């Protein structure tokens, strides 16, 4: 391994980064605890039974354990390029694997790298990419900061909360739902098109083969979750497919070189 990769990795896994990330995570965890305690007390005050409140807490904790393990797999996948502490921060609070990787890749191209590749990273590129990742995900937080009170008041005033829940559960989705799916289809098409073009024009086949293995693995996950109804597997489908594809990339690297 070259010295620059070694030095980059040692910087992005430094004690300083662990400390900064630890402070942010500690702050957010304390705030979660404050919300938890306040809501529990308020629940008792308005006449909710303690056993119902405890049931919510226990079921939420157990419900979250499996998806959290898949988040951990995401941290492992991201840690090779962005280091353990920053991947840990991005995936255990605020972000999600799909968003983080895509934004990091877009930011990497904006600073002139050929993609999110550890062999091309430096601390300068890391801080720029990290800042794009941080600023790029603030949309919902800014909406909460400036509009949440007024928006919920309006929704409640129009008795629309029930409608929103009913819409989500029972009715055919509106164009909004398709627009989001369509946007992600466009996103994936751009990348898959680029991998295919790269394989045909530049004979760089490893990205395409890696994507192919990920797709194949995802197809197997989809078969078991959709056809065999093993819904718990859904939590692992993206992270699991990625890790298997990354393992395949190592084999392709050994066989083809790269």
């Amino acid at each position, binding site marked *: 391994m070259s010295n620059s990769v070694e030095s980059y990795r040692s910087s992005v896994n430094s004690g300083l980064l662990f400390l900064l990330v630890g402070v942010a995570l500690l702050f957010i965890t304390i705030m979660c605890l404050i919300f938890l305690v306040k809501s529990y007390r308020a629940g008792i005050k*308005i006449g909710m039974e303690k056993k119902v409140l405890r049931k919510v807490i226990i079921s939420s904790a157990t419900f979250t354990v499996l*998806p959290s393990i898949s988040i951990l797999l995401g941290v492992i996948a991201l840690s090779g390029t962005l280091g353990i502490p920053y991947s840990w921060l991005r995936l255990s609070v605020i972000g999600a694997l799909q968003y983080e990787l895509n934004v990091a890749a877009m930011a990497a191209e904006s600073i002139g790298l050929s993609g999110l590749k550890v062999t091309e990273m430096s601390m300068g590129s890391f801080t720029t990419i990290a800042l794009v990742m941080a600023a790029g995900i603030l949309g919902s937080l800014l909406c909460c900061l400036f509009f949440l009170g007024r928006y919920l008041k309006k929704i409640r005033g129009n008795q629309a*909360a029930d409608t929103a829940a009913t819409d989500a559960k029972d009715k055919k989705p509106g164009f909004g739902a398709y627009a989001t799916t369509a946007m992600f289809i466009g996103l994936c098409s751009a990348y898959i098109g680029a991998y295919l073009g790269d394989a045909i024009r530049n004979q760089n086949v490893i990205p395409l083969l*890696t994507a192919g293995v990920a797709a194949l693995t995802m197809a197997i996950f989809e078969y078991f979750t959709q056809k065999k109804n093993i819904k718990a597997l859904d939590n692992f*489908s993206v992270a699991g497919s990625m890790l298997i594809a990354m393992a395949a990339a190592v084999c392709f690297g050994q066989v083809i070189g790269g």
Partner: protein
Amino acid sequence: MNQQEKKQFFENFNKSLHIIGKITVSISILLFLLIPIVVGFIYHASPDLGSFWSGFAKVAVIYYPVAIVEFLVYTPMLGVGGSYLAFITGNVTNMKIPCVMNSKDITDTPDGTPESEIVSTLSVATSAITTTVVVALGVILIIPLKPVLENPVLLPAFNNVVPALFGALGLKYFIKEPKITAIPLAAMILLCTLVPAMISQTSILILPAGGLAIGIAYLLHKKGKL
């Protein structure tokens, strides 16, 4: 507590959650933005502002509209406390929303009631704390594995994280809506094969590909073919 007192109490409770929520969101935003800046300052590798704005513009065009849609759709389900916490702690669609719906379901709590807001907030807070604990334990276990993860043999794995992601996600989305997929995918393959310079410009390609897919989805939706 009669209904009037309950309503008054809950209004005051929500007001206090808004205050704590806004403070928490503001400090969190500062922390998220400051970490790369502080690291850059200490390592003499500050973020390049030109590259930042160029990257941010591309990201914001895609993700800010998504963020607004998520805010509009999810906040009525999450309530005041749940919304602040869910958007700070992330993994909203894939974890927090299913978790909240599950909690409401098993406790038979109707939406739009004070009880529903309490259940949402408890659920999101518990879920976030559980994730933090599980991932923290996992990270402690990963650290001793660092020499293995950093072995040069594994470099192709970490150089191909993005293809691995889009292979998996692509399959998931493509089979979900094949009618929307066909044209944008074919167009991107053709474009990248005929104009090789576009291969390294995926962040630019996303815009026409996304626009094309949304346009096709709109037409199909309008004709009732979705």
